């Protein structure tokens, strides 16, 4: 009789030796959905912003605005919000349950942050092993995730300031909530500029987010590549 123990089971063995990808497929799908939805939310938000600016004299030209006037910017924004919230919620649950957040984003030591900043200023940007984030990367990813969550909260406050009047007063009033919603956008756009610049500087990170990237050892690091 052929007795197949769990250890010698062909499927189990192959999955152990093959290892999981740096970016498993759910992460990649959520990333690209978020990329499209974020662009929709940001550019339609600029269209809504333009009717009553937060910063006097600061406008977005029509090239940067999604929707040819406020009504359509608003409709884009209120359609995009569902995709942002649903995709974002799945991402947060996935990140916590799978352990990805803990594995990729923690721990962050202040001394590491300082060291990475110093290294970067000396153009010593280590990117041989794209499976391990440096302290600044970790910090930026945490900041942008929190900014995304904050955008949903301030967004709900300015969408329904009467139904959620408690939230509005917690945020310092309706106009304050608007400014916070605008500031959250600025944080996300700032992140995007750095994120895009680095992805273009190190194209294999971009490819990894499409194809999945290198396979990981059980410890979570790449099987090949330099680890300093």
């Amino acid at each position, binding site marked *: 009789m052929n007795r197949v123990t769990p250890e010698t089971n062909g499927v189990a063995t192959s999955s152990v030796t093959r290892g999981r990808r740096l970016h498993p497929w759910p992460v990649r799908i959520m990333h690209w959905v978020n990329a499209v939805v974020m662009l929709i939310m940001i550019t339609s938000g600029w269209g809504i912003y333009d*009717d009553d600016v937060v910063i006097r004299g600061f406008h977005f030209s029509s090239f940067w605005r999604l929707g040819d006037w406020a009504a359509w910017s608003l409709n884009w924004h*209120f359609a995009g919000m569902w995709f942002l919230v649903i995709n974002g919620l799945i991402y947060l649950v996935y990140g916590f349950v799978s352990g990805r957040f803990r594995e990729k984003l923690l721990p962050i030591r202040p001394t590491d942050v300082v060291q990475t900043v110093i290294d970067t200023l000396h153009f010593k940007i280590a990117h041989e092993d794209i499976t391990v984030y440096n302290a600044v990367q970790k910090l930026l990813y945490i900041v942008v995730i929190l900014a995304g969550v904050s955008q949903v909260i301030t967004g709900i406050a300015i969408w329904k300031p*009467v139904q959620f009047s408690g939230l509005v007063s917690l945020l310092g009033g309706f106009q304050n909530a608007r400014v916070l919603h605008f500031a959250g956008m600025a944080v996300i756009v700032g992140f995007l500029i750095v994120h895009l610049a680095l992805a273009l500087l190190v194209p294999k990170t971009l490819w990894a987010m499409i194809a999945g990237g290198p396979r990981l050892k059980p410890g979570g690091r790449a099987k090949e590549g330099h680890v300093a």
Partner: protein
Amino acid sequence: MRSPFRPDMLPDARVLDDHRPLIRSLERRGLIRSGLSLGALVMLTGCDVRRPEAVESALLAISRLNDDVQALLFDPNKLAPTYPASMILRPPKFNAYYDVTDVKPVIAATWRLELAGLIADKRAWTLADLQALPQTSIVIKHICVEGWSYIGGWTGVPLRVFLERVGADLRAKYVAFKTADNYPSSIDMASALHPQTLLALQYGGETLADPFGYPLRLRTAVKLGYKNPKWVTAIEVTNKYPGGYWEALGFPWFAGI
């Protein structure tokens, strides 16, 4: 050269002859149909690249879905925050689809509030009739869809009191408004019955000024600014979707806050 697509063995010529009219008509119809749809597609994408029809209708479908979600989120017992009278902005902020210099004042002596639809007593109301009804004052925030806001103080007849007085069907879906400045508007019945929804006659303790809707305007704390028609001339209670001025141009209908 012989076509590589031509079959080696041709079917019996009689078979083709028997079905020739059918084949011909199919070809002709198909060609015309595909030609037309190709032309339509070119025109569709050519007419407005920034706002193609398919995208527009998808966005409007989601906007209608959002109207339903907003109705679910609306708590008829939730009151909007109120403020002390000292915070009232004087005069209030003017906003309309035209400039303040184009406001055409309404003559109160000949003005009447007409009633229509699912209302038992459709007799028209004069300003004096409305002033004789119980009045309520609220100091609430006006929030415009554009983003600006101000605190205003309004006095008038709660719409609920008025609708009950005239015997309106309170189970109807919509309360619609016609105005002297041709700015149709409508709200859902639940919002119409909210205690902070007024047929306003006064601002800051004084008779409404001409630019702000004299003699009568709607002022509700639970909707964005554009759901507050000024110079109201008629109210209709209906189950047929009445729409509104900005709604017809693409803005969301429910616009609850």
